[in-house]
């Protein structure tokens, strides 16, 4: 067990865990932030996507020992993020969610896309969202919501 100092959603957090523990489980079990989801544990589905140092990252395969000083931002902070709020509103407006389990990760990937590429094309969307699985198949509305958010932010 080892103690790590994290910055999560602009707050300092100390956690004492096994250094191999993935960031996902630290967020969910130690910090009680359950908005970030476990789907596969092998970075195959994107349900666990968070931003680490501003980069969309699969938290299920990132050991806590490798986070370092990079700030971690999760779905819980998106309502207070300029782009995050617009994306969440677009998601609601387009009625994107079905079961909703993958949508934290979808939204984190979409926010990262729109931060880097304010006017994404279909190809940009496919590249940035291509690793986020949705078994309900909400992809058509995800595309629409990203485009709606881009217009809103434009």
């Amino acid at each position, binding site marked *: 067990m080892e103690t790590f100092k994290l910055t999560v959603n602009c707050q300092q957090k100390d956690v004492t865990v096994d250094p191999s523990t993935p960031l996902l489980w630290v967020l969910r*079990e130690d910090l009680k932030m*359950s908005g970030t989801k476990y789907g596969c544990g092998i970075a195959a589905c994107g349900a666990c996507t968070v931003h680490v140092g501003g980069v969309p990252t699969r938290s299920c395969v990132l050991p806590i020992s490798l986070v370092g000083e990079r700030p971690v931002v999760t779905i819980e902070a998106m309502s207070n993020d300029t782009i995050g709020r617009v994306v969440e509103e677009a998601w609601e407006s387009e009625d994107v969610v079905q079961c909703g389990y993958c949508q934290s990760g979808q939204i984190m990937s979409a926010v990262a896309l729109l931060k880097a590429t304010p006017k994404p094309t279909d190809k940009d969307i496919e590249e940035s969202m291509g690793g986020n699985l949705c078994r309900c*198949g909400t992809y058509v509305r995800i595309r629409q919501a990203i485009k709606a958010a881009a217009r809103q932010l434009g």
Partner: protein
Amino acid sequence: MATATTPNFLEVNRRTFLRMSGAAAGGLFLSLHLAEPGHARQTPKAQAYPPAAFIHVRSDGKIVIQVNRLEFGQGVQTALPMLLADEMDADWSQVIAELAPAADVYSDPIAGIQMVGGSGSIAHSFEQYRQLGASARAMLIAAAAAQWNVMPEQCRTEASVVYGPNSQSAKYGELAESAAKLPVPESVQLKKESELHLSGKNTRRLDSRGKCNGSQKFGLDVDLPGMKVALVAHPPVFGARVKSFNADAARAISGVRDVFEMPLVRGTGVAVVADRFWAAKQARDRLQAEWNTASVEHPDTAQLFSKYRELARTAGNIAMTRGSAASMDSIPSSKRILAEYEFPFLAHTPMEPLNTTVRFDSSGAEVWAGSQFQTFDQMAVAEVLGLKAEQVTFHTEMAGGGFGRRAVADSHVQREAATIAKRLPGIPVKLIWTREDDVQGGYYRPMFVHRVDVGIGADGMPIAWRHVIVGQSLVAGTPFAARLIKDGVDATAVEGVADTAYAIQNFYVSAHHPEINVPVLWWRSVGHTHTAFVMETLIDELAMRAKTDPIAYRLKLLSPDAKKLRACLTLLREKTASWRDSATGNRAVGVASHESFGTGVACAVEVSVENKRPKIHRAVIAVDPGFAVNPLSIESQMQGGVTFGMTQVMPKGAITLKDGRVEQRNWDGYTPPYINDAPVTVEVHIVPSSEKPTGCGEPPVPVISPAIVNALSRLTGKRYRSLPLAEI
């Protein structure tokens, strides 16, 4: 799940009646009770939780509605409250929908158990929720009328307010307590369609915000004081038992509390209990377990297909006969198509891994689970713990998808959780099936082989059809068997063929159900996953041979009473007229149509081949679900359902076994469609209808795969009869 032809599959059909549950907890509680001897006359006590009622009109004006089935994406948590609120004239912005816990009162009115499946939510509870709403409204009006000394007929309601004839008004919240003291009306008049203001209108989901900002709790998010996490090492071959295990390395992991052998529904396993998931996972990875696999059958995909193909050459148990089976023999081979189809095992892999939390102590047990079968799962936990079902408080948790995977008659996940919790009295235990457990753990859509002999008449239409279906029964050995297996034929294996809407004169369908050591389960749209593929690709092949437009051919062949499919195909033809015939060059259009669970769906896709895979540029759906309760939700079910259905055409869309062991472990080996694989657009058109509503969760699934390969056949001239789809 379950077939449209046999809705009441448990033979339970109790009369229901409304009952008011008193005002003890404040406000109006309206309940609905099942007329059952010894049960019916109890005076229920109103409780805030577990709720004794469907509706709780709180004094603050909030209207809390209990939803009698699991929400796992299909939108029922919005649609059923819409129906109720509409009849009640409730202020929609004040409606709170909750998932009801397990209780007899929340049973599906047709099935007789608390469950979701068979696309039955709206089909079965449409009247029920409207009656609840209309009854509550009548009681609120009666309370207001008494207060104002006017006749109820002189009052009207709007947005949770009762208005009297002399400008009186009272909010529902203010009337709730006095309304609760009034008798429940014997009968109520439901609104005419023209009077509905919510139902039939695009309505956004009630659960959207929480699912967009991370605050929605799912079963896996249950967190209780002192809770432990459990994983189970399952046998590498289904049903095998632990020979020996060394837990020293596992126990050495910090945070591991217990490691022990335990019975499973099939074979035995080793449970690992820890403070946290990661400790449990590391411990399970380090567990050195030896298994006795010699005594169980080692299923093997290649061998099974070979055995199934052999079986398909012989007639099975008869599922349907019409006309003369021998008529085929007089048709020359030049006028016949002999087609053999192969379908692999398919896993559901809902996004939220399977899980259940159980706390057991001397007074009873509490369960938290996203369950499609609350009744069975509650009973199973009670059985494992030596309790009565009513001693088990069963919370229905929001579930991250399911597609049938949370509708398991043997309740194997809940049994595992209860078995572990029994050993740790007073401590809540959350059992998690990792994705690997899920992919490798069985309960798949069964493998199937179909062998079909089609005889073609002079006009190019089929005049004889001989069809053999080989695959495991989904319901053998379950409580559903008595209802769904007849004359050795499991209805869920032949639905979509035996009851085809195509009028084929000489028609003969039989089935074999080999017993194989692989647990199987209904997969969203059940038998139609494979039967629609066979029927719709063959019909398309016949249309091509006849050089007839695929929509025209289908319309010609449909029986006169196939009204929904006819309406769908006609609407599809109209909506695709501008581009369907003009697809040229590297693009082609494929069509398929199929009715399942009472809902007709027709689909056209525009497809090209890119990187040896089908690229779906657009899909257009015409659907006839009767009266469309929430068109916005129907559209999303169609869009999502076709994408889910595409799982079976994905290159890695198969579960395979070699020498008893599942060859895939996770989504790297069993890969469903991602955004790049899904259609870029899915346009949905709903046939206008005032007919009784039918479900929309499953019916889009069957049409997409045949539509795609029908387009491919037009591009390549080849037929595609084995799934998953190999390189084009």
